[in-house]
Each structure stands twice: as structure tokens, then as C-alpha cells.
């Protein structure tokens, strides 16, 4: 999401004549002040809920903030970079657990984003032209996205139950694939369970965005390709997919950030303590903060997470933008 706006802003600033807006209004000061006035509510709220807390969070990460100081966090003693040192000391338990959680989250995110993108794009392309029942199918496909996260995840929790769940009933009782009913919400299987729920819930967003993106591809491109003798599959490969690349650039980034930071899905799926195999970083930090009441270390971990996401986003934007530019040149 962060990507298109800088580009748009540039475009707008490079052509100042069109964007000047109402220049006939009298009163220069009013005219200059108005945009700021319009932005003020949004700005204040962003400051209160996002930016100031972030600064405080960074400050907290340099403090020894245990439950004794929570009443007034400012009185907690500074402890320099101890929290950071502890978080990244991969030989000690805290750092080792954080590294493990980070790697699990990375693997989970890459798989989930890849699958969501693939399913969403395929569905959108398959449903591009009209067939009977298309409207109904489209509505159905959007249901997982429209459901509140917790109701969707609770339903999956029920399906993954060991004794009375649907998944074991089908795999064990009906198909006989597993020797005995498996545990899905604890142990190694929990990674698969988490991935399944995440993809089930997430792919319709990709579907929605790609569907919207497809409508912006000019029909003439297809007609020209058809005249040149390109078949359906070739048209998809040569026209549809390349035309979607600006949409994909944003879509993949947004999916990545949302999935990486996802708290709701693992929290409702596993409760306060996630199993090792599905120990996503946001729940891990939540636990490090609220279960052990060590907010300084929790904050340091959050800051490290944010830095990682900033770097990934930056590199991603540079790489994908350059790729596109050279292709156009």
C-alpha cells in the first residue's frame, strides 16, 4: 500500500497547474490554511494512535520495564541496549526462541502469500469472462474474506478438534489416510493448520484486487493479440500477467506485511501460547510482554521486527521498481 502514493505525489507535483484547485477564492491565508485544516483530524489521530506510541515504544525498548514500573513507565531505569542484546543473543534461551519464531514466521508468510496470490490470481483469471453462475461463485468466494476473523478461525478450531473435528473424521475415519486421529492444534501439525486457515481467509483478498486490476486492462490488447493468432493461454501469459505486474507489486507487499504481522489468526487458533511449530512472531512478542511482564524486552523485539519490515519493504520496492523500469526501457 505504501508504494503507489509516492509515485502519484510525484506525478501531481510535476504538473502543478492542474492540482492547484480553487484559485479563484479570495483570501490567500484561507487558501493556504485550508488543506492543513482538512488534514488536521487525520493527522492528530495518526499522531495519537500510531506515531506517539511508536516513539514511546522505542523509548521503552531501552528501559528495564518490568511489572514493578508499569504504573509509571517513565520511572523505569534505563538499561541501554541490554534488551536488544538479550533479544539477539541466539545462544541464550530468549534470543534462540526469538530466532526460531522469526524463521517460522518467515516460512509461514512466504508460503501463505505465495498460495494466496496463486489461488487468487488463478480464480480471477478463470472468472474473467462470463459463464453461468459466475456472480454466485464470486459472492461465495468473498465469504471467507467478509467473515470476521474470529468466527472464521473458531470454525476451523472446531474442524481441527482431535475427537469431534471434521478433519480427523475425514482423514482417519472416512479415508483411512492416518493410522490414528492426529492432533492439529498442538505439535508439528499446527503449522499446516495455521497455513490452511491463513490461506482460506487470505486468498479472496488477492482475488478481489486482481479482479479489479483485470478490469483496467484495455480490451484492444486482447483483440490485437487474437488477430496475431495468440491463443487463450498465450494471451494470459503475454498480456494478462504482465499487465498485472503493477497491481501485483502492491498486492504482494501488502499481503506480506499483513501476514507477517498477523496476530488474530494464531491468537484465536491456539490461544495465548502458540505451539513451537506455529510460534508466529506477533504472538511470541505478545507472550514475551504480557505473560512474562517484561515490556522492555518485548518492545525491543517489536522494534527489531519493525526494522526488519522496513528493510524488506525498502529493498522490495527498489528491486521491483527497477525491474519494471528496465523492462519498459
Amino acid at each position, binding site marked *: *500500500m505504501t508504494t503507489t*502514493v509516492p509515485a502519484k*505525489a510525484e506525478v501531481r*507535483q510535476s504538473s502543478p497547474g492542474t*492540482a492547484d484547485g*480553487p484559485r479563484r477564492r479570495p483570501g490567500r491565508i484561507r487558501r*493556504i490554511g*485550508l*488543506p*492543513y485544516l482538512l*488534514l488536521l*483530524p*487525520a493527522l492528530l*489521530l*495518526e499522531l495519537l494512535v*500510531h*506515531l*506517539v506510541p*511508536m516513539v*514511546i515504544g522505542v523509548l521503552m525498548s531501552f528501559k528495564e520495564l518490568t511489572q514493578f514500573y508499569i504504573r509509571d513507565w517513565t520511572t523505569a531505569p534505563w538499561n541501554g541496549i541490554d534488551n536488544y542484546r538479550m533479544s539477539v543473543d541466539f545462544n541464550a534461551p530468549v534470543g534462540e526462541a526469538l530466532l526460531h519464531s522469526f524463521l517460522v514466521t518467515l516460512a509461514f508468510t512466504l508460503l501463505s502469500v505465495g498460495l494466496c496470490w496463486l489461488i487468487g490470481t488463478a*480464480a480471477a483469471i*478463470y*472468472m474473467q469472462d462470463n459463464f453461468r453462475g459466475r456472480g454466485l461463485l464470486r*459472492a461465495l*468466494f*468473498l*465469504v471467507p474474506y467478509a*467473515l*470476521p*476473523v*474470529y*468466527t472464521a478461525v*473458531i470454525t476451523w478450531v472446531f*474442524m481441527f478438534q482431535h475427537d*469431534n473435528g*471434521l478433519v480427523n*473424521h475425514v482423514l482417519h475415519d472416512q479415508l483411512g489416510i492416518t493410522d490414528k486421529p492426529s492432533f492439529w492444534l498442538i505439535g508439528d501439525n499446527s503449522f499446516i493448520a495455521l497455513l490452511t486457515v491463513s490461506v*482460506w481467509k487470505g486468498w479472496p483478498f488477492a482475488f*478481489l*484486487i486482481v479482479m*479489479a*486490476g483485470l478490469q*483496467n486492462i484495455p480490451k484492444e490488447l*486482447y*483483440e490485437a493479440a487474437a488477430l496475431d493468432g495468440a*491463443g*487463450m493461454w498465450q494471451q494470459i501469459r503475454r498480456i494478462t500477467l504482465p499487465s498485472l505486474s*503493477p497491481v501485483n507489486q502492491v498486492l504482494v507487499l*501488502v499481503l506480506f*506485511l499483513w501476514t507477517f*504481522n498477523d496476530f*488474530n489468526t494464531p491468537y484465536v487458533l491456539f490461544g495465548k501460547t502458540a505451539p513451537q511449530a506455529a510460534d508466529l512472531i*506477533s504472538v511470541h512478542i505478545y507472550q514475551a510482554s504480557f505473560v512474562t511482564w517484561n515490556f522492555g524486552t*518485548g*518492545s525491543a523485539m*517489536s*522494534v527489531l*521486527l*519493525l526494522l526488519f*519490515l522496513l528493510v524488506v519493504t525498502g529493498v522490495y520496492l527498489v528491486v521491483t521498481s527497477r525491474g519494471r523500469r528496465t523492462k519498459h526501457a
Partner: protein
Amino acid sequence: MHNSPMAPPRSFLWSRRIFLTVLTGFVLVPVYVMVSSSLKPLADVSGQFRWLPSGLTIRPYIDIWSTVPLARYFVNSLIVAGAATVCSVVIAVFAAYAVSRYNFRGKRVFTVTVLSTQMFPGILFLLPLFLIYVNIGNATGIALFGSRGGLILTYLTFSLPFSIWMLIGYFDSVPRDLDEAALVDGCGPLGALFRVVVPAAIPGIVAVAVYAFMTAWGEVLFASVMTNDTTRTLAVGLQGYSTLNDVYWNQIMAASLVVSVPVVAGFLLLQRYLVAGLTAGAVK
């Protein structure tokens, strides 16, 4: 080989049939489990899973209201999500109008900052925000922590960046000649906004409202930390159906369905606007 885009080849049709069938199954199974289990007696959902209920009952739909104070959670969620949506949309309309129609110093900084908040891990500002709300409460007597107001404030900010971003794109697509004309006719800038730009951008505004409502209705993390018994929302309240001894899965499914129907119905009714809004704004 068919050359016309109107006649897809057989390989396309077949793969489409298989793909869409499998996908429909994947999407539908949990929905079916939710609906069918909500109509089953407790014995059916406690023992081995059954595809078909041994008997249909609407008992779970009656019991859900007394097992936990669901009605109160419902009202809380409705107030919080409703207020957050209205405020978020109004504030986003103002901000997007400023960015779309004016050149001013700091415009780029504003858009980039607002959007980059999207990548913040919620966990990073959960605790600081909690502390800020407690401190504001201590200093001014305005209770933000544990109140609906605090939650409204938080949620409306969550949907704000995406809403502003989408509306900027949407407002950009409304021809400037229209508001220029309104200004000539003697409307002020705000008159031009509300009489010309807003009516022309209704699909985008509806899309943004749907998004804001869904965000607030579904959020779990802040709801679990920032509410108390009287202000608890559905996201947290639904966990009340599992007691230590018994998990009333039929009631949980019934309650989930009751909670989901308003948003899903609203979303499906308005999804046309959302797609149109995304097409005009977000993915352009």
C-alpha cells in the same frame, strides 16, 4: 485453435472446471460446518463429527443469548464499529480531498507517513497506546482505557490510512472541471466537496465504509486488552462459550453465524462498490 477471445480452448474450460470445483469445496466446507453445527443438538457436536445432524434443533440459537451476555457484546460491537466507521469515513474524505485537490508543503511527507503506519506491527504500539490512554485518563478524567471511546478512537485510526489512500485515487478520477464549476457558482471549497466531489465518489466512499466497518468488527488484539466486562465486544465475548468442562460447539457456531451474518450480508451487497472502488482508486 480458437483465435477469438470469445471462444476459449477446451484445456482452459476443463482446467477451469476442475479448479473452480475444488476451490468451491475448500471455501464451502467451513461454511457448511458452521451452518450445520449450529442446528445440531449438543450430543452431535461433542462426539464424533457427523456430516448430517441426527436431528435439527434451533435450541442453540436460543441458548446463545443466555450462556453469555451476547446481546450486550453485540450492542458494544455495533456502537464501536458504527462510530469508528462514520468518523473514519468523514475524516478520510477531508484528508483525501486536501491531498487530491491542493498542493501544499508536506503533502508527500503526510501521505508517506500515514501509509507507512500500515506496516507497523500492532504489537509495537499496543502497550504504549495502553499507557497513553491510562495517562490521559489520569490527567483529564476522560476514560479511554476500558471504554468504548478508546476502542473507537483506535479502530478508526486503523482503517484511516487505507481509506485515505483509496479515496485519493477516487477523488483524482472525479474531473476537476466539476468542482471548478461549483466554485464559480459560488460554492466554497467545502460546498464543492460535499455537493460535487462526494456525490460523484459515492462508490469509493461506500467501499471505504465497508472496509472500516469490517476492520473494527473483526479486530481481536486491542479488544482483548482494552475492554472490560461492560464494554467487551464480540471478538472477545465469543470466547465465553467454552467453559472448563464443556465446549458448546453448537452454540459457538450459532453465535458465530449470528455475528457474521450482518457483515457478510452487507459486504456481499456492497461488494460491487468495493470492486469498483478498488478499480478506480487502489489498483489504477
